């Protein structure tokens, strides 16, 4: 039983730290930096969740923005359309109070996650028949279809977007807490999956699908599971995105977004959780940090040239299949310190 207590303690501490950081940061740092941090967290979440599909299970999905969009719009629809109707009978849902805001966000998260997961199931099914590039193009197609369906749904604003879902966010310092909370959950989930017996099945599918099938792995189930989990997390990120922006438009979830997320996974090292995490953060922050007067105009071309060069010079990504783990890193540092007198 000790470990349960230990875990609870650990998570309580994590929560407290996140909360404290959140309070301090949102009260003292400029809005644009907070919103950049939020974006970094969200893209890291997206990259790690896509890594579940592309890296760990070896599938080839390049339509992740579709699930992100489903989450964002379902979450937005809850807050903007359904909540106001329910609020009358359930005063607890009233926004502007701490509990109301957090509860609403939680409900939106659950709804967005479930819907995105179901969409993932829908998209995951063709993966049973298709491989490689063909699967890639179908996922890309699904992503675009989702976007166009949203574009033509007038209830959520159609092409002009769904604005604004601000009332939750600007009042309290919610964004960082939830975004980084979600990131921690996704990272821990992926890591634990990799270390579990279940995770070995995912890896087996990646390494050799036919062999895995022969060894008795239910490859169908594994692939669909990967799609569902990956897209559910993307949906959760979408919900948070919708609530941290002044508004969402279908254009935020176009093919480019999908491609950027895929790039993060590949650049970080396909299969490496820490790689995806880091690449997600860096690739989001880099174009914004380049936004200074000196290279403002050329930032995107520099960014894309770097991408090509990086792909050519380090095809396996930053970390390859490897991970960086903080404890091991510290241990190694310690050892080095001992060996050099």
């Amino acid at each position, binding site marked *: 039983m000790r470990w349960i207590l230990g875990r609870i303690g650990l998570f309580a501490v994590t929560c407290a730290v996140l909360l404290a950081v959140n309070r301090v940061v949102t009260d003292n740092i400029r809005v644009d930096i907070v919103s950049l941090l939020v974006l970094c967290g969200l893209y890291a979440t997206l990259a790690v969740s896509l890594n579940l599909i592309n890296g760990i299970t070896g599938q080839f999905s390049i339509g992740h923005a579709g699930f992100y969009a489903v989450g964002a719009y379902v979450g937005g629809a809850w807050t903007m359309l359904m909540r106001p109707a329910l609020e009358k009978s359930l005063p607890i849902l009233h926004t502007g109070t701490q509990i109301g805001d957090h509860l609403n966000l939680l409900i939106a998260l659950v709804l967005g996650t479930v819907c995105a997961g179901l969409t993932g199931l829908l998209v995951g099914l063709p993966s049973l*028949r*298709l491989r490689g*590039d063909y699967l890639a*193009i179908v996922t890309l197609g*699904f992503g675009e279809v989702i976007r166009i369906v949203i574009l033509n749904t007038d209830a959520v604003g159609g092409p002009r977007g769904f604005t604004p879902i601000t009332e939750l966010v600007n009042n309290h310092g919610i964004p960082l807490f939830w975004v980084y909370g979600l990131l921690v959950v996704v990272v821990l989930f992926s890591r634990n999956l990799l270390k579990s017996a279940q995770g070995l099945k995912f890896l087996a599918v990646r390494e050799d699908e036919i062999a895995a099938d022969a060894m008795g792995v239910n490859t169908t189930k594994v692939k669909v599971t990967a799609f569902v989990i990956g897209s559910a997390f993307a949906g959760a990120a979408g919900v948070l995105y919708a609530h941290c922006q002044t508004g969402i438009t279908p254009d935020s979830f176009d093919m480019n977004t999908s491609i950027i997320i895929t790039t993060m996974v590949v650049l970080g090292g396909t299969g490496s959780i820490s790689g995806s995490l880091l690449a997600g953060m860096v690739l989001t922050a880099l174009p914004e940090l380049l936004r200074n007067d000196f290279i403002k105009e050329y930032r*995107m071309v520099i960014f894309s040239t770097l991408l090509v060069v990086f792909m*050519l010079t*380090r095809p396996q990504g930053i970390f390859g299949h490897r991970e960086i783990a903080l404890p091991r890193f510290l241990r190694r540092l310690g050892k080095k310190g001992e060996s050099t007198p």
Partner: protein
Amino acid sequence: MQEFVQNLIYGVETGAIYALIALGYTMVYGVLRLINFAHGDVYMIGAFVGFFACTQWLPFKDLSQHPEAATLNVLLAIVTLFLAMLICALLGIVIERFAYRPLRNGFRNADAHFWGFVAALPLTAFVGAMTTTKRQGAFLAVGVIVGFALRPAMAYLSKKIKPSSSRLNALITAIGVSLVLENGGINVFGADPKFIPDILPKRQISLLGIEFDSSRVVILIVAAVLMATLRYIVLYTRPGKAMRAISHDIDAAKLMGINTDRVIAFTFALGASLAGAGGFMVAAFTNIKVVPLFGLQPGLKAFVAAVLGGAGNIPGAALGGLIMGVVESLVASKYPQWRDAVAFILLIVILLVRPAGLLGKNTAEKV
């Protein structure tokens, strides 16, 4: 019925352009199993070559003021068509040489130099823009020197690099090249829309109540001629034969003494020139706006068309392009907002029924 036939004809017009671009995708996919995402941007470059040729490089005359210049303009347009094809073919070769060949054969010194130069260009362009235009040449030279300076670092790195066979990797490289072309286009050409002036005489042809525009007919004819030429090259010439051999089995082709690198470069040049011709014709004859993202949507559609017909299959690409154009046009006449979605829905449905595309061969995976 009349409206249906009319829309059918519009669909064939659009489809012919999709087919022209799709051929480039499918040929590259055939020999390399690579989705050349930068292909749509080559199409964009074709349109820009057309724009600059029509407004600056060549002595085109504005037809609304000089109606007698029609013959001259037609001749010049033919020159521009070949110019666009040539420049795009060169671009295709450069892309293949410095972006995709390093993926296959490893990162060499020359690649290091090239990318060093490209990486230094924005910097020189930035400094160059601040000074007089005369001195930009000097700054370009600085770019070359910076490229040389970066060379040892790149060369050091390149020793540690193993060629990658990962599909994802190739895809991201292709996407990266596409982004370089698009963003570079924004820097070089500017993102504001540009329009090619009226250079060709246009006539409205009315046949049984169906409207034709002469320029669209020209696009159709030129596209058909180009496709027929391509078919001849692939089927009846030596490089075409080599292409087919590589597409069948690249290693065996190498063993038979085929210079695969050269043939692959040739394939890229061929595909890119078709795209360039398409880009110029669309920009010049339909006068739609020319922007650096000109090729994004058509490129994607053409790619879908290539997959639809069976990636790697040349008649398949032409068929896929035509089907896409016609279906889009028919859907757009009733539900314009679903035009883009229908392309993908069609793709998904067809791939679920025939996973290798319409004309593609379904190969069973062996253990």
